[in-house]
């Protein structure tokens, strides 16, 4: 894959969203920031493809 998928791709979007928010439960702002950073790194490594990552960086701007 060398293009970022910006079409809906999550089978259960509400489940993912709830899990994401729940992961922040009980965290201070600083802990949440640190968690988000770790999550981005984990996901980025999974994607691996630099071209896709660049598109993701642009899409998130």
């Amino acid at each position: 894959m060398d293009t970022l998928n910006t079409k809906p791709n999550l089978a259960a979007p509400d489940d993912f969203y709830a899990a994401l928010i729940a992961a922040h439960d009980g965290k201070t702002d600083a802990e949440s920031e640190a968690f988000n950073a770790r999550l981005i790194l984990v996901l980025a490594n999974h994607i691996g493809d630099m071209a896709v990552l660049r598109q993701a960086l642009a899409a998130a701007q």
Partner: protein
Amino acid sequence: MLHDRYSLAFKLYPYAKCPDQTAQTPVRHPVVVVGGGPVGLATALDLGRQGIAVVLLDDHEGIGMGSRAICFAKRTLDIADRYGCGGPMLDKGVVWNVGKVFQDDRQVFEFNLQPEAGHKNPAFINLQQPYFEKFLFEQICAEQKKGAPIQVRGKNRVDAVDRFDDHVQVHITTPDGPYTLQADWLVACDGAGSPLRAMMGLGFDGRVFQDSFLIADIKMTTTNFPTERWFWFEPYFKSGASTLLHKQPDGIWRVDFQIGWDVDRAEELKESNIRRRLDAMLGADVDYDIVWSSIYTFQCRRMDKFRHGRVIFAGDSAHQVSPFGARGANSGIQDVDNLGWKLGLVIQGKAPDRLLDSYDDERIFGADENILNSTRATDFITPKSKASHTFRNAVLTLAEHHEFARPLVNSGRLSVPCVYTQSPLNGPDRLVGGPAQTRVGSSCPDAPLGDGFLLAALGDDFVLLALNADVPDTPLDIDGIAVRAFGVSTTGGRHAQVAERYLGAATSAVYLIRPDQHVAARWPAFDATAVRDAVRTACAKD
């Protein structure tokens, strides 16, 4: 007046009055090198070995105290081998493989840089810079005995230069007063603060990192610390925002404390304050002597151009990097390696003056690569924003349990040789299936060859390296440039590492290799016209 700006570790070339000082008219020399640091010494050595008369001027009488560089990379050792002084460096240097990364009070991970087999030199050694310079100087003396026309003049400070189309006039101050020399070529190796750059009104732009590093070399008197590199991010002992501990020869350890931007230097350099930081790190029961200490701030910057007519800048005068990744002296030696043969050919009338412009092309490319790498390391070690700090710590946290995050940890990327992929000197790359590591522009990797190694057999002239291919027995003469051919057979499983590094999927190959042991062109077989064209291209004749 001449004042010493630093004290000496080795007094090697005491001032001696020379006839040039009393000559009626300024004496003209082919090359004058300004500065006797590692880069100036190597330049004099390279040119002198080619039989080119060179005068090196330094404002001191030897090598400065204080180690500064400690990490010397394989490429530097390979070049030093070519000059004949790699042996003593390797003998004296410390080889290390194990590195540990810590954050706060926990080890994040440990790595073992197992050396790749089949190279004469390790990936790097730790050696105090004064030793490195001393071995270069000793080789200069050895070459002088063999007749190399090298003069080294201590306490000769360059105070002004006048530039002309075909030479440079150099005004020098000595303990006996001033004198003037003329040089066909002047190589400026006068360091990061380059007085020559200032005399010529040339800029030196880049980035200053808003942090200071307290650096101490200590001699352990009680403990037997392992030969490993330890790097702490945000250490629990609070001696700095980061701390590096690294072994050197003679039982000496290098410690770097990142101590912040606004510091009182005089206060921080008091022995009691340095000891306070060291004791917090090492524990009270470790005894040591402080051998040397200093505070540095780091910057990454370079000149727009390194060649200015008859004046050529090399080493720190041309470009400066932060020390993470050990790219200062290592890249300066690559400058010399690149410049030496080019200047040699131009002076001998064997190549046009524009060959020297390729020094700019190739080494500016190299400098930018080094600046990029060391800037990235510095940004990881000293994050500039809250977000950057958060990500840095996220990487460190993940690295403890997840292998994927370890390559993101950047406490300095080891200096590796630059591949001149875009060089105007490059000829064709026609070797289908040839390994990427020996593509045109790369420096030749070493490999075992008979009882010795390939790089030693390549020497320092243009060479045709033929693998399972026929090449002429007698040296070629291409417009006055001698090209020696030599063949290696890899049939029957012989020279397996040469085959792996130079043949890859190909069955035969012919490489044109430059005097600095970079690949200029490669083909599957010998073709006289193609070789001739490539040699001409490599000498900027076309």
